[in-house]
């Protein structure tokens, strides 16, 4: 279908072409710049700790360990098993603590409360504490991200 009149003038076409290609040119530099400025989050795949540091833990007590740049919390349960959480509140990233008398995890920033299994019970936290899977391999306590083989 042939048009009677052009949709745009030669000038507009040329300007559009120039602007478009300049934009694409600039944008292609944007990707590496953004990649540089926003580096990927560095969380470890797994953390290996000497089991000897944790084998004498009393039930209902906790110990802090390093999970990358975040704190992890290892809890010895009443049945002498262990559970590991990322000790970061799911509300606004403050570090949580464990109160053994109340059997609750507590975030002081905005009064967030979690039960002894990390499930959020009171206050602003929207989700339970993140669990980490752990296994005892020989002399080591191996803590992994949940779901990682």
């Amino acid at each position, binding site marked *: 279908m042939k048009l009677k009149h052009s949709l745009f003038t030669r000038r507009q076409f040329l300007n559009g072409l120039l602007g478009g*290609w300049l934009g694409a*040119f600039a944008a292609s530099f944007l990707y590496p710049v953004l990649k540089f400025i926003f580096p990927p989050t560095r969380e470890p795949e797994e953390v290996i700790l000497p089991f000897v540091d944790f084998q004498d833990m009393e039930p209902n007590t906790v110990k802090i360990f390093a999970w990358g740049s975040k704190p992890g919390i290892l809890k010895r349960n009443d049945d002498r098993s262990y559970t590991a959480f990322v000790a970061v509140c799911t509300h606004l990233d403050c570090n949580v603590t464990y109160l053994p008398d109340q059997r609750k995890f507590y975030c002081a920033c905005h009064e967030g409360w979690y039960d002894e299994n990390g499930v959020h019970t009171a206050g602003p936290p929207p989700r339970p504490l993140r669990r980490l899977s752990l296994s005892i391999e020989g002399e080591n306590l191996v803590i992994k991200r949940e779901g990682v083989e």
Partner: protein
Amino acid sequence: MTAKKKLIALFVLIVFLHSFVLFKINFAQQVEQEKTGTIQEEASEKIVPGPQGIKESTGLYVFIAWLWLAILVLVYVLRLKIKEEDRLLEMRFLSEKKK
């Protein structure tokens, strides 16, 4: 300056810039040679940067190919724009002269 002269000037500029690169590389190579001549283990402690693996390399070469393609297209479009603007300038100049 005629179009031909401009093209030659542009070509000379690119050659000049690359010759300058060669000058610098020779310098870098010289420093490296002298270094490996002295202590061998120090050479291994040097961090030589570059793309890691085939995926990054390919991505980088594709990007550079795209870069130069875009530059060629842009230069072409800009030359059209320049011709247009120069033509308008002549027209305005001539109409002013008439006045």
